[in-house]
């Protein structure tokens, strides 16, 4: 068990971060090269002002008309994304690791709060799962891979919660926790989770097209 722990928390962790960073950069560079090679005209109407205007309107809860029309989804999706991004970075036990391994000192969340945020992520995953099953327009678009992605996102949080509270078999769940986190990280650049990388660009593009060419709002 100890050897496995050493492996997943050492070399595999480094690999996961490397794949995540290099993979993400690769995807972004690939996108820019493609624009440069085939759709150069896109550069001609990109604008910082309208890109930021669009991004701004879509990161503020309820700023877009569709967010107002779907209030529950808006609440869930904002909660989900905030907790998903904040918890793993600022969790106290992760903060310790940041400092131990990379000598980065981060502010950290009180344990109780991170517990709540972890539960929130898991709850939101259930919500998304229910949505995929219940709403015909979402079910129609859902593939097995969509459930797999949901599972991949939920896994590190579920296992982390179990391991932190040491409810059952701590070492085993700790390893599972690390492993599932690493899988998730490595999956970001190469699955639909890559919307994490691309969304600022799709928004910036639509924002610029609407602002610069169409002189209209895009929210």
């Amino acid at each position, binding site marked *: 068990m100890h050897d496995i722990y050493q492996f997943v928390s050492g070399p595999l962790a480094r690999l996961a971060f490397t794949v995540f960073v290099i993979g993400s950069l690769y995807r972004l560079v690939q996108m820019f090269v493609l*624009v440069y090679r*085939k759709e150069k005209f896109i550069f001609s109407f990109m604008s910082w002002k309208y890109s930021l205007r669009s991004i701004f309107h879509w990161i503020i809860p309820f700023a877009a008309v569709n967010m107002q029309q779907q209030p529950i989804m808006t609440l869930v999706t904002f909660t989900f994304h905030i907790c998903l991004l904040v918890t793993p970075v600022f969790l106290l036990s992760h903060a310790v690791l940041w400092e131990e391994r990379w000598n980065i000192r981060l502010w950290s969340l009180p344990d109780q709060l991170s517990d709540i945020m972890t539960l929130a992520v898991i709850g939101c995953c259930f919500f998304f799962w229910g949505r995929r099953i219940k709403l015909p*327009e979402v079910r129609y678009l859902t593939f*097995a891979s969509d459930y797999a992605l949901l599972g991949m996102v939920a896994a590190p949080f579920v296992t982390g919660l179990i391991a932190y509270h040491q409810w059952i078999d701590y070492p085993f769940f700790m390893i599972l926790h690390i492993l599932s986190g690493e899988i998730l990280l490595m999956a970001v650049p190469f699955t639909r989770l890559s919307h994490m990388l691309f969304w600022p660009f799709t928004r910036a593009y*639509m924002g610029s097209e609407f602002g610069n060419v*169409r*002189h209209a709002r895009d929210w």
Partner: protein
Amino acid sequence: MNEPVKKVAEIIPDEGIDAGLARLTEDRIENTILRVLNGETGARLKVYVETCIHCGLCSEGCHYYLSYDKDPRYSPAGKVKQTLWEMIRKKGRVDKAFMRQAVVIAATQCNMCKRCAMYCPFGIDVAYLMSVVRRITHLLGLTPQYIQATAHSHSVNMNQMWIKEDEWPDTLQWQEDEARSEIPHLRIPLEKEGADIMYSVIGPEPKFQAQLIYQAAVIMNVAGVNWTMPATPGWDNSDMAMFTGDNELMGRIKRVHFETAGRLKVKKIVMGECGHAFRSVYDMGNRWLGWKMPPIPVFHAIEFYYDMIREGRIRIAQKYAEPVTFHDPCNVVRGRGLHEKARYVVNAMCDTLIEMHPNREHNYCCCAGGGVINCGPPYKMVRIDGNRIKAEQLFAVKARGARTLIAPCHNCHSGLEDINHYYGLEMNIKFIGDILYQVMKKP
């Protein structure tokens, strides 16, 4: 779990599609799809397809989806699923039945109105994705017959309606004669080099709606602008090739239009009240030709009326009394942001404007645009049933007192007329020009 792509319930016979299918082989389909996916498209397609998280949030953006009882097959992403996702997943190896369904979806179940782009959290542009499908079907020779016939007319005559070269100046002369009985010195100046404005219209105006040319001539004359119309091909600003995926023809059409304006050395082009033509001249055709913006500034009629009223060149004798409501056409509102100028004009002409909801950028499309109405009678009910939501929106504004519906776009007009009749709305549908001509001060 993922549901299989279902067949559309009813297969509407269409010679353009069926004869095209008969000629195809699966190899040709595969090669053509790959040619477009790998050769012609770029980052937008790739990123849109890979970023889409299958959340369905774009659904509420689409009037087809809302009108067809929220049937997911009509949701924006649902249409992509039934077309591009499958083509990509199968690396182009799809069969004829699939292609038949794909062309019906792309050509008749999407108006390319881009409303859904405002509902997707990533701003994924399903209209663009449908245009990629149309490009594929064009290259395969699978375009619905009616719209292909108009594209052929463009190719042969450089106008949409098979109007011969001598019929065009004849029509203008006829309208000039008619208008002279109202304003004796009125002219429709032909081929006037160095005029400020070249006025261009769409093919159906001389063909069926010559009174619109009459009205425009009166407005131009009263406003006292220095204008002209070309006597040669290039007078038609419409463009069905843009909607069939025939980009090369789109380029030819726009080139003739711009070159005609260039030959006449005008300062700007003013276009009649048409939305799709504006999109072609302002956004699509110019870019295909390599111009970021049109080489000669282009103004939609709304902007022209706005300027004329603001500058006091056109005055209102007596405002239009019947309460009106205003339909924001996608191509000039979501496409050019003319909603406030349009309201300025409407308020200047009319006593009471009652807004429909939603409005401005969020207005529901007329369901005729994007070439759908041009696919002809076989699909008439697809778009009338597919826009029940528009009828509901209009009934609601009618209940609040609106009797006249102003729509400054030809496609919107025809589509809304169908909705008006079918659902028994009984509203008067008018162009801005109809009312302006009626209420303006004339000498």
